[in-house]
């Protein structure tokens, strides 16, 4: 016999001195396929179930609340579980955090979700990859397919008892293009819920086109400060900076000084960012109606036309900021800007469609990334370039940035299809 939720709850309720508790049982059924040049290299099955237990201990008449967390394997014996729970109780008493409350039930029933059909989803992924249009000069090198049926059951001492079931899919794909004995590759990691065949074909089709273009790329010239367009998932890093800085965790830790009712950027002259928090986007890889602490996810506005509106975050830091009804949303949507994508592309610019690893530092907004493929538009002529890097700070770029009206979804984030940052420093390969 392995550990069941009811038996574990019984043990938890028996722990002396635990003032509150929370348990999540996460079950995953995973199907994995590893393909090289369209042939199967290996396939794998995953069947896992894990408990995550947090015990809380109030201190000094409720002035402080400590907590300690541990995973408990389903193969743990009752004696082993009892030892872990006793350790958690002891440790929680020494963790001195200001008091906060756990999520309470909202009295609304949870909508049941059907169990994902992992076999059907896996078949859809395999067929879509098999039938991907490929040519002699550009094709799929390798792909890894991950299909997971996730079930999360969360129970806490306040009466929350919620269950979420959803599919989570991912394809990691590498495409090649070749000419005259020279071969290049591009990498994609595409997440979704079930198989989004049309989206997969579009994104891998773009990758094949970009890889062909990369064959003819020339070294990026030193451009100094220039306009850079972001039209791929690198834009998620840009908008992630806005979203992260509105989290209660960053605000409570004083890493972000953004406050509701105030502009997120002083002296903004460009498009103003609007961010909505959402429980789901179509076919996103997490669509549970509740967050990891059992809080129901309702839509709300995070940033409204450049003004900080409402923070999002986990229970502890949200309580500290007086936002007891907050949550960690599954998805965010950034509203489009004032111009069309083609309008943004009209002037001289560098549109970068491949980075080795584009990053925005959440602390200071510094951007950094090596350019693997870009389209340099100057005087009506377009040159395909590679190499060099970008740098600068979102704290400055946010004052003048422009966004396209059109938007595009990357799994749990919907962002403008084209984002223009002005005055980005581009270190080229050619002086």
């Amino acid at each position: 016999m392995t550990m069941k939720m009811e038996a574990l709850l019984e043990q938890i309720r028996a722990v002396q001195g635990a003032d509150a508790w929370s348990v999540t049982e996460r079950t995953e059924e995973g199907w994995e396929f590893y393909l090289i040049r369209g042939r199967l290299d290996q396939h794998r099955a995953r069947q896992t179930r894990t408990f995550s237990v947090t015990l809380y201990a109030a201190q000094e008449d409720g002035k402080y609340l400590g907590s300690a967390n541990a995973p408990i394997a389903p193969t743990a014996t009752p004696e082993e579980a009892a030892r872990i729970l006793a350790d958690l109780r002891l440790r929680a008493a020494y963790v001195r955090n200001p008091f906060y409350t756990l999520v309470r039930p909202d009295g609304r029933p949870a909508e049941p979700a059907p169990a994902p059909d992992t076999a059907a989803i896996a078949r859809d992924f395999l067929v879509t990859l098999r039938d991907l249009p490929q040519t002699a000069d550009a094709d799929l090198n390798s792909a890894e397919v991950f299909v997971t049926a996730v079930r999360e059951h969360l129970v806490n001492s306040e009466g929350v008892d919620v269950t979420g079931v959803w599919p989570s899919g991912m394809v990691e794909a590498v495409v090649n293009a070749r000419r005259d004995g020279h071969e290049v590759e591009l990498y994609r990691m595409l997440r979704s819920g079930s198989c989004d065949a049309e989206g997969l074909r579009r994104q891998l089709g773009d990758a094949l086109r970009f890889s062909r273009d990369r064959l003819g790329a020339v070294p990026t010239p030193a451009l100094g400060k220039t306009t850079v367009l972001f039209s791929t998932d690198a834009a998620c890093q840009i908008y992630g900076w806005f979203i992260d800085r509105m989290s209660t965790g960053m605000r409570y830790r004083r890493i972000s000084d953004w406050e509701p009712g105030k502009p997120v950027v002083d002296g903004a002259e460009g498009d103003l960012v609007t961010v909505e928090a959402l429980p789901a986007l179509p076919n996103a890889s997490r669509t549970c109606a509740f967050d990891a602490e059992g809080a129901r996810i309702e839509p709300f506005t995070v940033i409204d036309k450049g003004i900080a509106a409402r923070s999002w975050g986990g229970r502890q830091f949200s309580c500290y900021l007086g936002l007891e009804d907050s949550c960690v949303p599954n998805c965010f949507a950034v509203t489009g800007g004032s111009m069309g994508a083609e309008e943004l592309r009209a002037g001289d610019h560098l549109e970068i469609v491949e980075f080795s690893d584009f990053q925005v530092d959440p602390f200071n907004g510094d951007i950094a990334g090596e350019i693997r493929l870009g389209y340099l538009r100057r005087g009506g002529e377009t040159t395909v370039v590679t190499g060099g890097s970008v740098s600068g700070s979102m704290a400055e770029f946010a004052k003048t940035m422009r966004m396209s009206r059109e938007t595009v979804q990357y799994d749990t984030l919907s962002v403008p299809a084209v984002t223009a940052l002005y005055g980005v420093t581009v270190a080229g390969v050619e002086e």
Partner: protein
Amino acid sequence: MKAPFSPYLTALAPRLKELLGILRADYDQVSALATDSAGFAVQISQRAKTVRSETMMTERGVVVRVCRNGQYSEAAFNDFDPADMAGLAERIRGALAAQEAVLRAVDTPAYATPLQSDEPLTLFWEAETGRLPEDEDIPALIGRLSAISDRGMAEGKDMIDCAVRAQSTHVCKMFLSEHRDLRQSYVISEGGVIAMVTRGGRTEMARGSVAERLGPEIFDDLSPQLAEALEVSQELLGAGRVEPGMYDIITAPDVSGLIAHEAFGHGVEMDMFVKERALGAQYIGKRVGSDRVTMHEGANCTVQVASYAFDDEGTLAGDVTEIDRGILRTGICDALSALRLGTVPTGNGKRENYAHKVYTRMTNTLFDSGEDSLEDMIASVKKGYLLRGVNSGMEDPKHWGIQCIVERGYEIIDGRLTGKVISPVVMTGYVPDLLGSVSMVSPDREAFGSGGCGKGHKEWVKVSDGGPYLKAKARLG
């Protein structure tokens, strides 16, 4: 003391051998990796404190690898009744058969791979450690870390917060096959201090880190890490930007390690050779760096967080000379890729945990030492930077591009450090150009194990990397 092997795995061993015996009736070859690794992670700051019994390497579960007619597949699970191995065997057969049915339905062709070597071998290894994470007095540790955080706030300038973290894992793994029984137990620990500062609207974060293949005793005095974090935080607040261009650079051992890792760590992971994704396959025996460049990779080439006795496929740990005085000699390889390539595995088959696939992964990757002093290196630079601190890096084995985001650079003009600091520094270039430009190498060598390594953007494992000071030329932006 020795880190004792897991009693849970010891008790499970005969049951797993029974399971493998049952499965051998259906498959040509069967093996299992079982894990039971416990640990803790404590983070203390002025604003929030967390205590968890979970780290990057804590896990408990089993993965069974089977091969039939040249087709390898795996089943990973952690929810089973040890008293019912026949039932578990049926579950494994059923799960894999369901996948095979889908593969047949979509007409997916498959590779045939030879059987993995299963030469008889028994190993039982318990590494030395000062203390064990499961025995650590966590309340006392919370007190020590809180005192460091308080000191940071008192002694630092412009402080928002001072976070102190400590995590330790007792790793226990057991590999079983028809002829092999390998068991290992060791402890790794890592931690450090993060100073968060702000001045004039600029917010920065600086770290001082420690990591060892030792127990939580390494957290007994984090004063050096605190001092480093406080000093660097002030440098970052006053840092300027680099004027993009080519410069003479001197890389500190941590940045040398980042180059080793991104350049010819990922570049010679031979599962990438199988996919024809690595340019390195065409350069074995050819020059890829200057005469001063020698690089080692392997769990045995130093003692750090990635040092073990055997990998996750039951291959004994190794020490590979990847680059010998500028010539690329060989790569590193997991067992199944070695079978495809007709070579031998090097003990580099690693999983994120039992539930993940094996890939060829780095362990400890280090440049060898030389004979040039740091003082002579600085004196030889007309205009350039001494680079220290690692933010991140990204591999590009197909094209040998390199991206290293370095935390800070110290300006050198006419052979002297000027005191001017730049941050961040994006170092990019073509790997053979960068390694080919290495002209001086210092005698001292350090390895660093604080970071993690992904394959692409997933499959995170512990690695260490390092080397001596190197003088080279690179493009900074």
